[in-house]
């Protein structure tokens, strides 16, 4: 039983170019409601850009984005982004606000909750990531792993229908990676729709329902973890897997 009101997410024939540099060249991706898709591939393959295009931080040149089966390209992009939580490699917590305020801020300003209620809900979210006792301190005093958990709480507090993770563990010290991955696994098993750009092949293989392998701005292979990891069809994926595993 899902704890979240999550939705499915589809990208259709997404194209994006920066000048002559074609970053996305016709991406098709579909993430079923309540499932986790991991996006893997070499650096510069367009994985992180794909996330930013699907929440319209960058507008695609061509193609369509559907949330729960409905095109969102005509919607107000700010409102779309409230429905899609995003977690970054560098956490990007607001350093001038306390940990609690990092979570409560958008609740007050965007979900228009009264101050007390926003704070109570922020504490509740922080409790879920085990950091309620840090609500009063500045993010800089936390470890990387703790900061990333706060960033996840901040995104979840908006009650998103989909969560994006952009290499969420790449900036963490090895011993801190586990805690964040465990939290992400919990989210996946609780039924959150997730798109996870990652270099963590263990997570990709064991937690995600679907693996998307990108290279050079296109989806080269797409299927179940078993398919991709045990029977890679293309030479490109075979080479990638032999490089990273």
């Amino acid at each position: 039983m899902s704890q979240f009101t999550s939705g499915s997410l589809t990208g259709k024939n997404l194209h994006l170019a920066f000048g002559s540099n074609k970053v996305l060249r016709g991406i098709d991706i579909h993430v079923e409601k309540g499932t986790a898709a991991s996006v893997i591939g070499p650096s510069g393959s367009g994985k992180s850009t794909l996330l930013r295009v699907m929440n319209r931080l960058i507008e695609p040149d061509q193609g369509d984005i559907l949330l729960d089966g409905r095109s969102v390209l005509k919607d107000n992009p700010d409102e779309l982004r409230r429905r899609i939580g995003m977690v970054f490699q560098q956490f990007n917590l607001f350093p001038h606000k306390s940990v609690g305020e990092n979570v409560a801020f958008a609740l007050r300003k965007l979900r228009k909750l009264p101050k007390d209620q926003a704070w109570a809900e922020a504490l509740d979210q922080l409790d879920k990531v085990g950091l309620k006792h840090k609500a009063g301190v500045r993010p800089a005093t936390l470890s990387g792993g703790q900061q990333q958990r706060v960033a996840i709480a901040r995104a979840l507090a908006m009650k998103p229908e989909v969560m994006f993770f952009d290499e969420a563990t790449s900036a963490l010290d090895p011993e801190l990676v586990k805690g964040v991955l465990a939290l992400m696994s919990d989210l996946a098993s609780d039924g959150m729709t997730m798109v996870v750009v990652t270099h963590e092949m263990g997570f990709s293989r064991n937690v995600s329902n679907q693996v998307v392998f990108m290279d050079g701005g296109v989806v080269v292979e797409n299927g179940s973890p078993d398919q991709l990891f045990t029977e890679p069809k293309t030479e490109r994926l075979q080479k990638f897997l032999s490089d990273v595993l």
Partner: protein
Amino acid sequence: MDAWSRLADTFLNWGYIAEVLPTMFSYGLLNTIVLALASGLIGTFLGIVLALMGISRNPVARWVARIYTDIFRGLPAVLVILVIGLGFGPLLNELTGIRSPYPLGIAALSLMAAAYIGEIFRSGIQSVDKGQLEASRALGFGYGPSMRMIVVPQGIRRVLPALMNQFIALIKESSLVFTLGLMSRERELFQIGQDFAANNGNQSPLVAAAIFYLALTIPLTHLVNYIDNRLRTGKEQKHEPDEAAAVIGKGAHA
């Protein structure tokens, strides 16, 4: 009289210092503060406008800010004060009847301060990591609210020390309004010291003025350092034991 006692008399004649103190206290100090504070406030306001123009998406706004900044940062303060003070004085007098050089002195100081303060704000805002804007936008804030609530406040905080330095510079530069010719009650610390020194052929009144300036600027300098420290570390937190091992700047005391 030997050389030492002559020098002591030239710079530290307590009689002259005692004579000049009441005047400095009664209006000299206040005039200096009024000049610095007024031009500091106006300069800050104009500086924010210039900074926002400087980072605007509109190329005309960026150019106007650029040209303004180049001009007012590139000229000697005394030249700007003279040109504006003497040049616009008659016009101001005709239009408003104001004879005091203060409004134009403040205007000249403000215009120059704005050029520096604008650059301080602009560099501060632009030094904020772009991930901050991205994170705020990813939460669902628009570009404007993200800049206003997340990026600009961080930029301004990190330049507060530089801003205080600018205010210290204004306290010192306010002395240049003497070039516009001040009436007796309009004199600020420097002009009062200068007049007493000239009348008595003794530099002690200027030393008194110097002490006044230092009494204003030194506490501010230390306030800057305090703010700087506080901004870097936030409120006093419980330190992890290993943090003491690598405090930048403490190496010299080890």
